[in-house]
C-alpha cells in the first residue's frame, strides 16, 4: 500500500519506520488527508504487529509545523470544526493504543499538532541541535491545542511547565525539553536512529511528572494554582479579547482528572475558539506575516561583513542581529560607552549559544574603528 504523504518501511528488526513527507509542500503540516492516511497506516500496523514504530520527518525543515492552518481556518461552522478536531484526536488515540513501543524522532521544529503527535507516542527523542524547537504556539492564533495536547502534556511534565508552554506559546530547545521531561532523550543527530532502535528493543520506563511536579495536577491543588494563573494572566490579556488562554486553564482545572472527558471538552472548547472572531483575526495576521516573509528575496544580498556606524539603539540592534545571523560585524562609534552597551546586549541575547563563549559567536567583532 502506498500513501501520498507517508512512507512506510519495515526493517529486518521488524521496526516500522514512518516517514512523514507531505506531498507538494516543503513543510509537514497535519491536514485531514494526512490524518486519514496516518489512521489507515495505524490500522495496518495493528494487524502487522511490528516490534515498534518510529515516526519521523522526511523534510529537512523540521518534524511537523502543526495543523494545516489553511484547512482549519476554513472551518467556519462549529460542527465542521468538531469533525476535523475529532479526526486528529481519534487518530492520535489509536496511535497511543497501538500496543507496541512508539517513538517520535524529532529534528527541527515540532510545533502545535506536531508536538501533539509526538505526545501520543510512548517516547520522544530529539536532535540536540539548536534548530530543534518544541512548543504549542496555538494560543498565539487565538486557539489552544486540540489534538489531545491539553490532556497529555500536564501529566507528563507537571502543570506549571505545561501551562507555561501552552499559555505563552513559547518553544523550548531539545536540551530544555529533556530537562523538563518533555522528551526522553536529546541526542546528537548521529545517534538518533540508534536511540530509536534501542528504545524500541529495550523500552525504558515512560516519563511522567513525579513528586512535587506530579502533585500539581492533583484535584485539591488545581483550583489554587488555577487562581494564581488566572491572576497572572489577567495582567497580560483580557478574557473578552483573548479567550484562548482562559479556556486552557478552565479545561485543566475542571477535567484534568478524567482524560476521556477532558479530550471531549478540549474538542468542543477548541471548536468554539476556532470559529470565534478573535482567532479568525489572529489567523489573518498570521497569514499576512507569512506573505510578507515570502515577499523578501533572501538571495538578493548575502553580506559577509557588515560595518555599522553608530551604536545607538538602532545601530546596536542591527549589529547584534547581523552577528546572530553569522555575519562579521564591526561597529564604529565616537564613545566606547555606546559600544560597551551594544556588547552587553549582544551577550545577553546570545547567552544560549552552545559553546558558551563570551560575546556571541566568533564571527562578531565589536570594536571602535579608528
Amino acid at each position: 500500500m502506498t500513501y501520498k504523504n507517508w512512507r512506510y518501511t519495515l526493517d529486518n528488526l521488524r521496526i516500522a519506520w514512518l516517514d512523514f513527507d507531505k506531498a507538494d509542500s516543503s513543510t509537514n503540516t497535519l491536514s485531514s488527508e494526512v490524518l486519514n492516511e496516518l489512521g489507515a497506516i495505524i490500522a495496518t500496523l495493528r494487524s502487522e504487529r511490528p516490534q515498534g514504530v518510529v515516526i519521523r520527518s522526511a523534510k529537512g525543515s523540521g518534524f511537523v509545523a502543526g495543523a494545516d492552518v489553511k484547512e482549519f481556518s476554513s472551518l467556519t461552522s462549529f460542527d465542521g470544526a468538531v469533525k476535523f478536531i475529532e479526526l486528529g484526536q481519534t487518530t492520535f488515540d489509536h496511535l497511543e493504543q497501538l500496543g507496541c513501543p512508539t517513538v517520535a524522532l524529532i529534528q527541527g521544529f515540532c510545533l502545535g499538532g506536531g508536538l501533539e503527535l509526538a505526545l501520543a507516542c510512548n517516547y520522544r527523542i530529539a536532535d540536540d541541535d539548536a534548530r530543534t524547537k518544541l512548543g504549542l504556539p496555538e494560543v498565539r492564533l487565538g486557539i489552544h491545542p486540540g489534538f489531545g495536547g491539553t490532556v497529555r502534556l500536564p501529566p507528563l511534565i507537571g502543570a506549571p511547565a505545561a501551562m507555561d508552554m501552552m499559555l505563552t506559546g513559547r518553544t523550548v530547545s531539545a536540551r530544555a525539553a529533556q530537562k523538563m521531561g518533555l522528551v526522553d532523550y536529546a541526542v546528537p543527530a548521529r545517534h538518533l536512529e540508534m536511540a530509536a532502535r534501542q528504545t524500541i528493543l529495550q523500552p525504558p520506563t515512560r516519563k511522567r511528572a513525579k513528586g512535587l511536579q506530579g502533585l500539581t495536577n492533583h484535584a485539591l491543588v488545581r483550583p489554587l494554582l488555577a487562581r494564581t494563573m488566572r491572576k497572572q494572566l489577567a495582567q497580560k490579556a483580557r478574557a473578552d479579547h483573548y479567550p484562548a488562554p482562559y479556556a486552557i486553564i478552565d479545561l485543566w482545572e475542571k477535567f484534568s482528572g478524567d482524560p476521556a472527558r477532558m479530550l471531549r471538552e478540549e474538542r468542543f472548547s477548541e471548536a468554539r475558539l476556532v470559529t470565534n472572531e478573535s482567532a479568525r483575526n489572529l489567523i489573518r495576521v498570521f497569514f499576512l506575516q507569512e506573505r510578507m516573509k515570502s515577499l523578501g528575496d533572501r538571495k538578493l544580498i548575502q553580506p559577509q561583513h557588515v560595518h555599522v556606524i553608530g551604536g545607538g539603539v538602532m545601530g546596536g540592534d542591527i549589529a547584534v542581529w547581523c552577528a546572530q545571523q553569522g555575519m562579521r560585524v564591526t561597529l564604529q562609534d565616537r564613545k566606547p560607552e555606546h559600544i560597551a552597551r551594544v556588547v552587553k546586549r549582544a551577550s545577553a541575547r546570545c547567552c544560549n549559544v552552545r559553546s558558551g563563549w563570551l560575546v556571541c559567536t566568533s564571527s562578531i567583532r565589536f570594536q571602535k574603528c579608528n
Partner: protein
Amino acid sequence: MTDQTPSRLRRPVYIVDGSRTPFLKVKGRPGPFTASDLAVQAGRALLARQPFEASTFDEVIVGCMMPGPDEANVARVIALRLGCGKTVPAWTVQRNCASGLQALDCAADDISNSRSELVLAGGVESMSHAPVLFNHDMVGWLADLNAAKTFGAKLGVFSKLRLKHLSPVIGLLRGLTDHTVGLSMGQTAEILAQRFNVTREDMDQYAMESHQRLAHAQDSGYLNEIATLYDTAGNHYSADDGLRRDTDMPRLAKLKPVFDRPFGKVTAGNSAQVTDGAAMLILASEAAVKKHHLKPLGRIIDSQWAGLDPAQMGLGPAHAMAPILQRQKLAVSDVDYWEINEAFATQVLACVRAWQDAAYCRTELAFNDAIGKIPRERLNVDGGGVSLGHPVGASGARVVLHLLNVLKRNNAKRGIASLCIGGGQGGAMLIETV
C-alpha cells in the same frame, strides 16, 4: 633599507603591526575575561585594520603560562574565535614569564626558515583565572568516594573527611614558586637585592618612577597600542588600571615586605602587579609584506635565550642580552632604547648593576670588562610591570610591541627587549625600525 644590522635570521622577519589590551589589575575574584577573551579582543582590533583576511595566516602562536582548564592549547581557541578558520594551525608555547617572547621567536624562526610567510603571534595571561586546585589528600578522598559502591562504604569514606582536605592549592602561587630551589619569585628578588646592594629606597624610587612614567605616557597618548576591551556586563576598559598616580616615597615606604617577612625589602609596591592582559603581533616575511602591501613597523634582528641559577632568575636579562651585543658587535650606546620587563624593581636594577660590574661581566658573562651602563632615561621609558602589571604570558609580546612604539616615536632605530624568566632563564630580542 641600508645601514641595517646583519640579522641572525636567514630571511628578514618584519613586525607588521600589533595591538594589546589594557592590563587589568587582579582584584581577588576572577576577572571579566578569560585568556582567550583577552587575546581575541586584542586580535580583533588588530585584524580589523589589516588588508588581508584572518584566514591568510600560516599559523597562530600564542604564549601563555597557565591557560584555563577550558582553554587547553589556548592559541587554537583564539585562532578559531578570531575567524582564522579551521585550516590555520595554532599552538601554544610556555616559557613562564617570557612565553609571549617565545611565541614571537618561534614565529620569527618559522618565517626565517620559510615555513611560514604570515604569522599571528603574541602572549596572553588571565592571572585572575589561575586555577585553585584540590590538594592531594582531597583528590585521594574523592577517588575513595568514587570507588565506594555501597551506602555503608560511602558513609565510611565520609567519616574520613577532615578539614585539612579542604585547604586549596592556589595555582598562581605554586606557579610563581621555583620547583627546584623552593623559593618564591619574590625571594629570588630579595637575593639579588642582597647581592647587588639594592636598598629599599632604590627599589621604591624605581617603582615610583615607573608609575610617574606610565602616568606621563598615558597623559601624552603614547599608549596607542592599546585596544579598548568590552565585557559582557557593558563595561569598557581603555587604560592600564594598575597605575597609582598618588604614589610617593612615604606611601611606598609604609608597605610591608611580602616575601621575606618581616625583614625583607621587596614589597607589593616595588613588584610587578598581578594582572590580566594580552598582546598580539603580526609577523611577516618580505614576500608577505609585498603581497599584501603592508607597512611594517620594524624587523626582528636577533634573539637569545640564557640559563642561570634559578635562585637568581631576575638576572636573566643581563645574561640574555649580553650575547646579542657580542654577536652583533654593538656597544650599550649603540642601542637606542631598552625594555627590561619589571618583574621586580630590584631585579631590573640588579641587571643594570651587573653590567656595570666588571667582575660579574668577566666571570658570568664572558666579557673582558664591564659591559656598560644602560641609561635610565633609555630604559622602560613609559613604565613597566611595576606600574602597569605583568600578565606573565603576555609581557614578552608587550615589551617588544611597546619598544617598537618607543623607537618610532623617537625616530630611533635599535632597541632590545628582555625579560627574566622564573626557573632561572632570560630572553632577549633585538629589533630595528624600518
